[in-house]
Protein backbone atom coordinates (compact mmCIF):
# COMPACT_ATOMS: atom_id res chain seq x y z
CA UNK A 1 0.00 0.00 0.00
CA UNK A 2 1.26 3.40 -0.94
CA UNK A 3 -0.09 6.83 -0.19
CA UNK A 4 -1.59 8.88 -2.99
CA UNK A 5 -3.49 12.04 -3.54
CA UNK A 6 -5.87 12.72 -6.39
CA UNK A 7 -7.21 16.09 -7.40
CA UNK A 8 -10.16 16.01 -9.77
CA UNK A 9 -11.85 18.92 -11.49
CA UNK A 10 -15.52 18.29 -12.22
CA UNK A 11 -17.32 20.09 -15.01
CA UNK A 12 -18.92 23.36 -13.89
CA UNK A 13 -22.05 22.91 -16.01
CA UNK A 14 -23.46 20.38 -13.54
CA UNK A 15 -25.91 21.08 -10.76
CA UNK A 16 -24.85 20.50 -7.15
CA UNK A 17 -26.44 17.03 -7.05
CA UNK A 18 -24.81 15.96 -10.30
CA UNK A 19 -21.42 17.10 -8.98
CA UNK A 20 -21.92 15.07 -5.80
CA UNK A 21 -22.96 12.06 -7.87
CA UNK A 22 -19.89 12.22 -10.11
CA UNK A 23 -17.63 12.65 -7.07
CA UNK A 24 -19.22 9.58 -5.57
CA UNK A 25 -18.48 7.72 -8.80
CA UNK A 26 -14.85 8.83 -8.57
CA UNK A 27 -14.58 7.59 -4.99
CA UNK A 28 -16.25 4.36 -6.05
CA UNK A 29 -13.53 3.84 -8.68
CA UNK A 30 -10.86 4.16 -6.00
CA UNK A 31 -12.52 1.92 -3.42
CA UNK A 32 -13.44 -0.75 -5.96
CA UNK A 33 -9.74 -1.01 -6.87
CA UNK A 34 -8.81 -1.74 -3.27
CA UNK A 35 -8.09 1.83 -2.18
CA UNK A 36 -8.76 3.16 1.29
CA UNK A 37 -9.87 6.77 1.33
CA UNK A 38 -8.26 8.57 4.25
CA UNK A 39 -9.64 12.04 3.76
CA UNK A 40 -11.38 14.24 1.25
CA UNK A 41 -11.32 17.96 0.74
CA UNK A 42 -13.78 19.89 -1.38
CA UNK A 43 -12.08 23.03 -2.57
CA UNK A 44 -15.32 24.07 -4.24
CA UNK A 45 -16.01 25.96 -7.43
CA UNK A 46 -12.96 27.94 -8.50
CA UNK A 47 -11.90 29.91 -11.49
CA UNK A 48 -9.43 27.94 -13.58
CA UNK A 49 -6.07 29.52 -14.28
CA UNK A 50 -6.63 28.81 -17.97
CA UNK A 51 -9.68 27.51 -19.83
CA UNK A 52 -9.95 23.74 -20.16
CA UNK A 53 -12.28 22.61 -22.96
CA UNK A 54 -13.68 26.15 -23.04
CA UNK A 55 -14.67 25.98 -19.37
CA UNK A 56 -13.62 28.96 -17.27
CA UNK A 57 -14.32 27.42 -13.89
CA UNK A 58 -14.43 24.02 -12.27
CA UNK A 59 -15.30 22.16 -9.10
CA UNK A 60 -12.13 21.08 -7.30
CA UNK A 61 -12.14 17.97 -5.15
CA UNK A 62 -9.16 16.35 -3.45
CA UNK A 63 -9.05 12.73 -2.27
CA UNK A 64 -6.30 11.30 -0.10
CA UNK A 65 -6.08 7.53 -0.19
CA UNK A 66 -3.74 4.58 0.02
CA UNK A 67 -3.74 1.81 -2.54
CA UNK A 68 -1.43 -0.81 -4.00
CA UNK A 69 0.78 0.84 -6.66
CA UNK A 70 -0.39 -1.57 -9.36
CA UNK A 71 -3.97 -0.29 -9.11
CA UNK A 72 -3.08 3.28 -10.07
CA UNK A 73 -2.91 2.50 -13.78
CA UNK A 74 -6.46 1.15 -13.69
CA UNK A 75 -7.74 4.09 -11.63
CA UNK A 76 -6.22 6.57 -14.06
CA UNK A 77 -7.61 4.68 -17.02
CA UNK A 78 -11.09 4.91 -15.51
CA UNK A 79 -10.62 8.63 -14.88
CA UNK A 80 -9.60 9.20 -18.47
CA UNK A 81 -12.79 7.54 -19.69
CA UNK A 82 -14.93 9.57 -17.29
CA UNK A 83 -16.28 12.55 -19.19
CA UNK A 84 -17.45 14.38 -16.06
CA UNK A 85 -13.86 15.24 -15.20
CA UNK A 86 -12.05 18.14 -16.80
CA UNK A 87 -8.71 17.18 -15.30
CA UNK A 88 -7.20 14.93 -12.69
CA UNK A 89 -3.82 15.07 -11.01
CA UNK A 90 -2.42 12.03 -9.22
CA UNK A 91 0.42 12.53 -6.78
CA UNK A 92 2.49 9.86 -5.13
CA UNK A 93 3.75 10.23 -1.57
CA UNK A 94 6.65 7.83 -1.40
CA UNK A 95 9.63 8.95 0.68
CA UNK A 96 9.52 9.23 4.45
CA UNK A 97 9.29 12.99 4.31
CA UNK A 98 6.42 12.87 1.85
CA UNK A 99 4.53 10.30 3.91
CA UNK A 100 4.87 12.58 6.91
CA UNK A 101 3.48 15.44 4.85
CA UNK A 102 0.65 13.20 3.62
CA UNK A 103 -0.33 12.38 7.20
CA UNK A 104 -0.32 16.06 8.01
CA UNK A 105 -2.49 16.86 5.01
CA UNK A 106 -4.96 14.11 5.89
CA UNK A 107 -5.23 15.38 9.44
CA UNK A 108 -5.75 18.91 8.21
CA UNK A 109 -8.43 17.81 5.73
CA UNK A 110 -10.25 15.75 8.34
CA UNK A 111 -10.23 18.64 10.78
CA UNK A 112 -11.55 21.00 8.14
CA UNK A 113 -14.34 18.63 7.11
CA UNK A 114 -15.42 17.94 10.69
CA UNK A 115 -15.60 21.54 11.80
CA UNK A 116 -17.87 23.13 9.17
CA UNK A 117 -20.32 20.24 8.95
CA UNK A 118 -22.82 22.09 11.11
CA UNK A 119 -22.47 25.16 8.94
CA UNK A 120 -22.90 23.36 5.66
CA UNK A 121 -26.42 24.63 5.03
CA UNK A 122 -25.57 28.34 5.39
CA UNK A 123 -22.32 27.75 3.52
CA UNK A 124 -24.16 26.94 0.32
CA UNK A 125 -25.89 30.28 0.52
CA UNK A 126 -22.63 32.02 1.18
CA UNK A 127 -21.05 30.48 -1.88
CA UNK A 128 -23.81 31.68 -4.14
CA UNK A 129 -23.67 35.09 -2.49
CA UNK A 130 -19.92 35.41 -2.91
CA UNK A 131 -19.91 34.10 -6.43
CA UNK A 132 -22.06 36.81 -7.90
CA UNK A 133 -19.69 39.67 -7.01
CA UNK A 134 -16.77 37.59 -8.27
CA UNK A 135 -18.14 37.56 -11.76
CA UNK A 136 -18.59 41.28 -11.63
CA UNK A 137 -15.03 41.67 -10.45
CA UNK A 138 -13.45 39.59 -13.17
CA UNK A 139 -14.48 41.77 -16.12
CA UNK A 140 -13.55 44.85 -14.11
CA UNK A 141 -9.96 43.66 -13.67
CA UNK A 142 -9.75 42.68 -17.30
CA UNK A 143 -10.91 46.09 -18.32
CA UNK A 144 -8.30 47.65 -16.06
CA UNK A 145 -5.60 45.50 -17.64
CA UNK A 146 -6.51 46.62 -21.10
Amino acid at each position, binding site marked *: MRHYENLV*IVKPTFTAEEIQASIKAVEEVITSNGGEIAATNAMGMRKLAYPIDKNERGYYYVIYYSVAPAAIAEIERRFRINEDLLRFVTIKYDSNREIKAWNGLVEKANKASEAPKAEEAPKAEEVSATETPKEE*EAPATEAAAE
Partner: protein
Amino acid sequence: MSEKRKYKKRYCKYCEAKVDFMDYKEVASLRFSLSERYKIMPRRLTGNCKRHQDMITVVIKRARAAALVPYTVSRKQVVTAPFENLR
Protein backbone atom coordinates in the same frame (compact mmCIF):
# COMPACT_ATOMS: atom_id res chain seq x y z
CA MET B 1 33.64 43.02 -8.62
CA SER B 2 33.61 46.34 -10.39
CA GLU B 3 30.11 45.61 -11.62
CA LYS B 4 27.41 46.92 -9.36
CA ARG B 5 25.27 44.36 -7.64
CA LYS B 6 21.70 44.68 -8.87
CA TYR B 7 20.09 42.70 -6.09
CA LYS B 8 20.57 42.44 -2.36
CA LYS B 9 22.62 39.71 -0.86
CA ARG B 10 20.46 36.67 -1.21
CA TYR B 11 19.57 33.87 1.11
CA CYS B 12 17.12 31.00 0.81
CA LYS B 13 13.81 32.04 2.34
CA TYR B 14 12.63 28.46 2.43
CA CYS B 15 15.69 27.37 4.40
CA GLU B 16 15.10 30.16 6.85
CA ALA B 17 11.48 29.04 7.32
CA LYS B 18 12.66 25.39 7.45
CA VAL B 19 10.25 24.28 4.76
CA ASP B 20 10.31 20.52 4.41
CA PHE B 21 7.37 19.99 2.13
CA MET B 22 5.44 22.23 -0.23
CA ASP B 23 1.81 21.73 -1.11
CA TYR B 24 0.90 22.58 -4.71
CA LYS B 25 -2.61 23.57 -3.62
CA GLU B 26 -1.38 26.55 -1.59
CA VAL B 27 -1.11 28.91 -4.51
CA ALA B 28 -0.26 31.98 -2.46
CA SER B 29 2.93 30.39 -1.18
CA LEU B 30 4.13 29.70 -4.73
CA ARG B 31 3.85 33.35 -5.65
CA PHE B 32 7.31 34.18 -4.33
CA SER B 33 9.05 32.00 -6.91
CA LEU B 34 6.94 33.12 -9.88
CA SER B 35 7.45 36.15 -12.06
CA GLU B 36 4.54 38.40 -12.91
CA ARG B 37 4.14 36.39 -16.09
CA TYR B 38 4.05 33.21 -14.05
CA LYS B 39 7.43 32.02 -15.15
CA ILE B 40 9.47 30.21 -12.54
CA MET B 41 12.01 32.68 -11.18
CA PRO B 42 15.64 31.63 -11.54
CA ARG B 43 17.64 30.78 -8.50
CA ARG B 44 20.11 33.56 -9.13
CA LEU B 45 17.38 36.15 -8.57
CA THR B 46 15.42 34.63 -5.71
CA GLY B 47 18.39 33.21 -3.85
CA ASN B 48 16.72 29.87 -3.29
CA CYS B 49 19.04 27.02 -2.50
CA LYS B 50 19.29 24.15 -4.94
CA ARG B 51 17.25 21.80 -2.81
CA HIS B 52 14.32 24.15 -2.40
CA GLN B 53 14.47 25.32 -6.00
CA ASP B 54 14.10 21.71 -7.10
CA MET B 55 11.14 21.32 -4.76
CA ILE B 56 9.40 24.48 -5.91
CA THR B 57 9.81 23.69 -9.62
CA VAL B 58 8.09 20.34 -9.14
CA VAL B 59 5.32 21.92 -7.07
CA ILE B 60 4.72 24.74 -9.54
CA LYS B 61 4.50 22.30 -12.43
CA ARG B 62 1.93 20.28 -10.52
CA ALA B 63 -0.09 23.39 -9.79
CA ARG B 64 0.02 24.27 -13.49
CA ALA B 65 -1.31 20.86 -14.45
CA ALA B 66 -4.14 21.32 -11.94
CA ALA B 67 -5.04 24.72 -13.47
CA LEU B 68 -4.28 26.49 -10.20
CA VAL B 69 -1.49 28.51 -11.79
CA PRO B 70 -1.37 29.51 -15.48
CA TYR B 71 1.35 28.24 -17.77
CA THR B 72 1.69 31.57 -19.53
CA VAL B 73 0.05 34.96 -19.39
CA SER B 74 -0.37 36.98 -22.55
CA ARG B 75 0.21 40.71 -22.55
CA LYS B 76 -3.49 41.46 -22.27
CA GLN B 77 -3.98 39.29 -19.24
CA VAL B 78 -1.12 40.63 -17.12
CA VAL B 79 -2.74 42.16 -14.06
CA THR B 80 -1.06 44.38 -11.56
CA ALA B 81 -2.36 42.30 -8.65
CA PRO B 82 -2.31 38.72 -9.88
CA PHE B 83 -4.04 35.86 -8.03
CA GLU B 84 -6.83 38.11 -6.86
CA ASN B 85 -8.95 37.07 -9.81
CA LEU B 86 -8.13 33.43 -9.09
CA ARG B 87 -9.36 33.53 -5.55
